[in-house]
């Protein structure tokens, strides 16, 4: 059994050999996946809807148990579980805290303001028994939120925020403790042009840090191309491609064909817009 005390020095970050998992006990959505992620890699997880991206991400961050194969995080083998009640023990707390996560549904605490929710998580992780620690938590939350351009909206409850603000607040929370590893599910989802610059700036910071590992599950091709030198494409719970974006875009995968069609439509729209303008 993996325990907090047995955590070894991590290398690689994730090592999956022939893993299988599902959203329920009897359903297998992903099967026979092999994946190795080294420190500093920036990976885009792409694929069609229902291809297994969301489940794989949840397995990687310890929110879903792996039922088959060998799954190691920071060099520590994780338990294979079936029962909900044990899910808390899928991954030790100390490993979870090294990974910053923002899933598709941000899950901001709804009964407190965004700022209070972030401070609370920070204090729970690092302790709140001294005034210095509590002040430190406030300062870090303020700095991180300012970096994401959240401004006065952090004093509001999540239900009063726009979807873009909620998204940025969720991503800001993932960055709060400056984790070694960032996992973001659809980071640009709901982020319109107004907030896109802020998001780019935050992700530039991740891209510039050679030691920081990142996995973005996304349907935003431009984001994937800009930040991720390694693309993994999933289909029906399996990897159909693992390599560089150039290599993938030169191929004739259905996704690439769809992307080309999309680019043609966008180009015609742009031409029409320029004509009017």
């Amino acid at each position, binding site marked *: 059994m993996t325990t*907090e005390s047995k955590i070894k020095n991590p290398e690689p970050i994730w090592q999956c050999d022939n893993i299988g998992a599902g959203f329920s006990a009897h359903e297998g959505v992903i099967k026979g996946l092999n994946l190795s992620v080294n420190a500093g890699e920036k990976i885009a997880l792409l694929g069609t809807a229902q291809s297994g991206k969301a489940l794989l991400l*949840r397995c990687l*961050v*310890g*929110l879903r148990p792996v039922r088959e194969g060998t799954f190691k995080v920071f060099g520590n083998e994780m338990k294979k579980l079936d*029962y*909900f*009640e*044990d899910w*808390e*023990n899928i991954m030790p*707390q*100390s490993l*979870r*805290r090294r*990974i910053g*996560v923002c*899933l598709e*549904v*941000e*899950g*901001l*605490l*709804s009964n407190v303001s965004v700022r209070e929710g972030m401070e*609370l*998580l920070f*204090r*729970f*992780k690092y*302790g*709140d*028994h001294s005034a210095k620690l*509590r002040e430190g938590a406030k300062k870090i939350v303020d700095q991180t939120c300012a970096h994401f351009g959240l401004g006065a909206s952090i004093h509001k409850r999540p239900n009063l925020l726009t979807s873009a603000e909620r998204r940025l607040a*969720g991503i800001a*929370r993932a960055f709060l403790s400056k984790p070694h590893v960032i996992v973001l599910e659809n980071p640009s989802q709901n982020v319109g042009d107004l907030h896109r610059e802020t998001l780019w700036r935050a992700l530039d910071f991740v891209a510039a840090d050679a030691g920081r590992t990142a996995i973005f599950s996304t349907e935003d091709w431009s984001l994937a191309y800009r930040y991720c030198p390694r693309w993994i494409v999933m289909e029906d719970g399996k990897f159909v491609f693992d390599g560089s974006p150039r290599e993938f875009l030169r191929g004739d995968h259905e996704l690439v064909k769809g992307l080309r069609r999309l680019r043609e439509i966008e180009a015609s729209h742009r031409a029409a817009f320029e004509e009017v303008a």
Partner: protein
Amino acid sequence: MEFSISALWAFFSTMLSSWKRDRPLRHLDTRAVILRQIFFTGSEAFRLISLAAIIIGTVTVIQSGAQLRKFGGADALGSILVAAFIREVGPLVTTIVVVARSVSAMASELASMRANGEIDSLRACGVSPQSYLVVPRVLSGAIATLLLAMHFVWISFTVGFFTSQVFVNIPFDRFVDNVLTGITGMDLVIFFVKTALLGSVVFLMACYCGLRTSGASYEIPQATTMAVVWSFMFVFVMQLSISGLYYFFVLQRSGLLGML
């Protein structure tokens, strides 16, 4: 969504291991959650408990007083009130009110948090939902139920005294003397143990049912119903078991068990 004793046991074990690992009571935030829960559970049920104590106290004294007066045993009224309210009715009625008011609310709150992705996000951020949500709720539930049960007993005895003045006509000093001689140390132990146990079990049930949902919003009312129904089941079974054990040992000690 189905209920399973083995899953509940696993949930309880996980709560204990999380408590041991994280020591959540060291955190000011957890203590704040405990105080807030005690306040809400207590204040929500306060008036209802008072009303229940007034009605049950009055009816018990009228009914038992009338019967006792027929046989000239009005002096036993104090002992009957002790047995009824401290050992049995106090813990039971209080827990039933708490289940109806707070357990249902807590189960739906936790199920909504799960549906909103808050539980997953807490877990992903390295904060154990068991330590931050379950431990303080179970603890505060036990404390609040205990306080409410004490309030119930106090109100029912006061009402019992005034009612007995009208219907049985016992002087104040005799009534107090009867009650005080009727209370034994074992009665108080049973009262505290039973109430705290019932309180913690029903709030554990609320947390279990709320967090067991898969995250779909249609499961929120299902979780609430399941928490209330199974809480009642556990309350009745535990009430019967604890009282049964108590009377078994009392009868055995007094030698009456062999005569039966």
